């Protein structure tokens, strides 16, 4: 895992300075992640998704007892793959995080989260995870999309 972190830092540094085509060459030159590395990285992601799931169902974000899940069970109608897009109620092009904050402030009557907070990252991770596999459609205001189909029972199968 330590190797991974160093690699990620190096990758980020290189990305900032170099063109995408050069980055691709580097990526090709580098060995693929091992199964064990992939498993660890996925566990990290799922821990964040789980935290997001808990927050999504927690009344502590608001003041009137409501939760995100009141209107968005399994993240439904959060449409994360359509952001950024013009949001009627925000009055400008909004990111998913801005929209989450709008929901916290208006329907939940709560206090907005700092956009770079762990809580915000977790909420965003949960919403996006429930729309895994959807093609990106920034700006799409044409319809509401259901989340991935989930079987009854524990987890997010």
């Amino acid at each position, binding site marked *: 895992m330590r190797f991974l972190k160093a690699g990620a830092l190096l990758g980020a540094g290189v990305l900032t300075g170099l063109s995408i085509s050069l980055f691709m060459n580097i990526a090709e030159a580098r060995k693929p992640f091992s199964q064990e590395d992939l498993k660890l990285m996925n566990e990290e992601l799922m821990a964040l998704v789980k935290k997001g799931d808990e927050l999504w169902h927690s009344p502590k974000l608001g003041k009137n007892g409501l939760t995100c899940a009141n*209107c968005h*069970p399994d993240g439904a109608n959060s449409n994360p793959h359509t952001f950024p897009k013009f949001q009627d109620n925000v009055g400008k092009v909004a990111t998913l995080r801005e929209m989450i904050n709008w929901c916290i402030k*208006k*329907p939940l009557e709560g206090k907005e989260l700092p956009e770079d907070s762990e809580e915000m990252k977790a909420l965003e991770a949960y919403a996006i995870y429930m729309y895994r596999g959807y093609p990106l459609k920034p700006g799409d205001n044409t319809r509401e999309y259901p989340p991935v189909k989930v079987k009854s029972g524990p987890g997010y199968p």
Partner: protein
Amino acid sequence: MRISRRKLFKVSAKAGVAAITASALSPLMGVVNVAEARSSRRNKLQPFNFVVIGDTHLYEMSNHRFDKTFSRAIDDILKLRPRPDFVLFIGDLAQFGKVKELEKGKRFLDRLERAGIKYFIIPGEHDWYLDMGRTWKRMFGKPFWSFDHKGVHFIGMNSILVEDYWTARNMSPEERMLAIAELECHVCGLWGVGERQLEWLEKDVKKLSPDTPVVVFTHSPLWEYYPRWNFQTKDAPQIREILSKFEKVIAIHGHVHQVVYNRTGNMVHIGNLATAWPWPYPPVELPYPKVRMLRVDPGDIYDGVGFASTYIDETFIGTMKYHTWAELIPDEFKDGVPL
């Protein structure tokens, strides 16, 4: 004796599924059959209307947004002309089954009674799992019932009974309630009416003739819509089988907080709006995609919610009209969804 009954139900449930598949494959045939049944009805009914309201999800705190929408709905019901013969409350009066929430709900409903409008009520899961329905039953009586009104047989059932998920997990009553209060409850399993109510239903309809108009009323749909959100009733196939002897049955449900419609065999199914908030459509194809609600403005507490009145004509053709306070119903169904 009980086991053999269960076996019988399993067999007949399969027969029911086959019948439904057949009618789904040839929808036109189903329509023709219903039309014939209508025209052959000998005893004409005296037309009437009744209101369906529910999923108010009241919280304990005062002056809550869900108090406002429920209150506005009651105001509107009292102003309806023609006046409804009665009101059917379709479950989830409270949010967490608390005594204060249920008492608050009863105060709202009692406004109807004071104005001379009787109401009937069934429970939803939010009313039930804090104290296993004790407060609800003390306040409202039996959670399943039937009555006859102007020639129509009305049935109400408690469809939200799940198997014990709390004892083995050592959950407190509050934890049990909070778990099932989530639509995507990861531990609760599928719910239904259970064997006792199935036996009761069978007896209840035994002496009724097939041309009796029947309206059945459950919190959850009597068809498999989306089990993940308990948009289903586990023993719905058995219920449909028991009711299959009737020419036509109108089945009305809550829980989905949305406009949704389906037909199975001799039954027409329709979902009611909540007064609290709308649920989005689940990731399955709607059987009748035209019958759905429009996009909701989440900034308006009066959008996406409402109640319905159901008009029954002399040949038992019903119309369900959704009462809303925003642009929610497609033009085609503004005057009502035919039942």
